[in-house]
């Protein structure tokens, strides 16, 4: 009986430690995008990116609250939300995938990584492989990525009657600093 209790205790503590170390997460990742436009370049940033990284099986999810992007020009922000992204209908842009490279998360170091999965923007799924740089530090993981989004791929229409014509491809960068998830 004593042994069993000891075993149970070990299990509990084991699962506790396990959960502590395997999943890394953040609610304050940074994402920004940029689009070249003839009249005024369009750029916006958002520091409410949510992401989780499972270091045991390389699974990664990213969830971006679309309505939280900040623009220099408030009217542009409005257009972004109402006309292009329809953020009340599609409040989140997401990515769900797996990091392709085998990474030793117990060692500090910087790795070139790629993740394959589904990118969902404006309610439209696209299979994508996104590249980035992953830095393992003691008690934190930093992931930086740069990728392009083609508006057409996600059924984001550019109306003909618009003064600030925007580019058809938007370049996006993210910088995410993960820390071990607290249960």
């Amino acid at each position, binding site marked *: 009986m004593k042994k069993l209790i000891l075993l149970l205790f070990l299990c509990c503590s084991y699962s506790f430690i396990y959960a502590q170390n395997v999943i890394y997460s953040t609610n304050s990742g940074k994402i920004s995008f940029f689009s070249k436009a003839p009249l*005024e370049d369009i750029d916006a940033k958002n520091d409410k990116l949510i992401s989780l990284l499972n270091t045991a099986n390389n699974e990664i999810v990213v969830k971006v609250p679309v309505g939280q992007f900040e623009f*220099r*020009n*408030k009217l542009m922000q409005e257009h972004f939300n109402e006309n292009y992204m329809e953020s009340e209908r599609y409040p989140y842009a997401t990515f769900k995938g797996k990091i392709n490279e085998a990474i030793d998360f117990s060692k500090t170091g910087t790795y070139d990584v790629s993740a394959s999965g589904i990118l969902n923007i404006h309610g439209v799924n696209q299979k994508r492989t996104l590249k980035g740089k992953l830095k393992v530090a003691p008690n934190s993981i930093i992931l930086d990525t740069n990728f392009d989004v083609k508006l057409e791929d996600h059924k984001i229409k550019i109306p003909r009657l618009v*003064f600030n014509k925007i580019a058809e491809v938007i370049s996006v960068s993210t910088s995410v600093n993960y820390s071990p998830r607290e249960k």
Partner: protein
Amino acid sequence: MRGFIAACLLSIPLLAFAQDDLMEMAKDSNEVRVANTSFKGIRIINGHSVEIVGKNNLDFIISHRFDRVNRGFENFYGLDAATNRLALEYGLTNRLMIGIGRSSFEKNYDFFAKAKLLKQTIGANNIPVSLSAFAGYSLRTLKSVPALSGKERSSYTGQLLLARKFSETLSLQLSPTIIYRERPDNFTDSKTVFATGIGGRLKVTKRTSINGEYFYVFPKQIDMGYNNNLSFSYDIETGGHVFQLLFTNSYGMVERQFITETTGTWGDGDVHFGFNISRTFSFNKKIKRE
């Protein structure tokens, strides 16, 4: 047997873990979602909307009201004559804006401040309505006989703007208003006038909407010759600009003029065609890329 139990127990956390869906866990309990704008413009039509200009953004607004439509063909249905209001309106913060305008009608200058007190949100913080407060001062500089002092030509307006975006397409606003005129044109009018505005917009497409607005002046305050202001507009926004094409029974574009001194009636065709065009400029620094 004991080994088996141990193995089972040891695998519990693994199983529990495997069932966790990362996407399900991707939640921010502090997240607050602010509703997108209730109105395209800083004004519903004549009256102020709950919206304010963004921080360090400058709106340049050119408004015209043409003469009455019932002037007939000879005066090209009123288009031969027009009044205008030119205005600069600036966002000091994301919740406070100021503005200055000059109307050709009565050579009127107006100054105002508007503050956003509440933003409609859902999430960790649930607020069902947006609320703004408006304070305005206006000075008529048209020469009159007898000549009046600056104080006598002044008027003050206070408004609460309470709006709710019911859906993507429908927003409604209630605007309780108090106007104080130092010297009403009609000496039997009360100096202090209470009114309330009701306005709304119906989005037709992503970029266009139909707006309506009505100001009800509570009875026994102003002369029977004055009418309540009723307006309709069609709003078009084209990235950076908002165009409002409108019909209204008022010539003036400042609260004193269109709430307490509207003379036209829709029934008689005393309707003015007009438009508001606003162009937004941003003075914010470039956003640093991460």
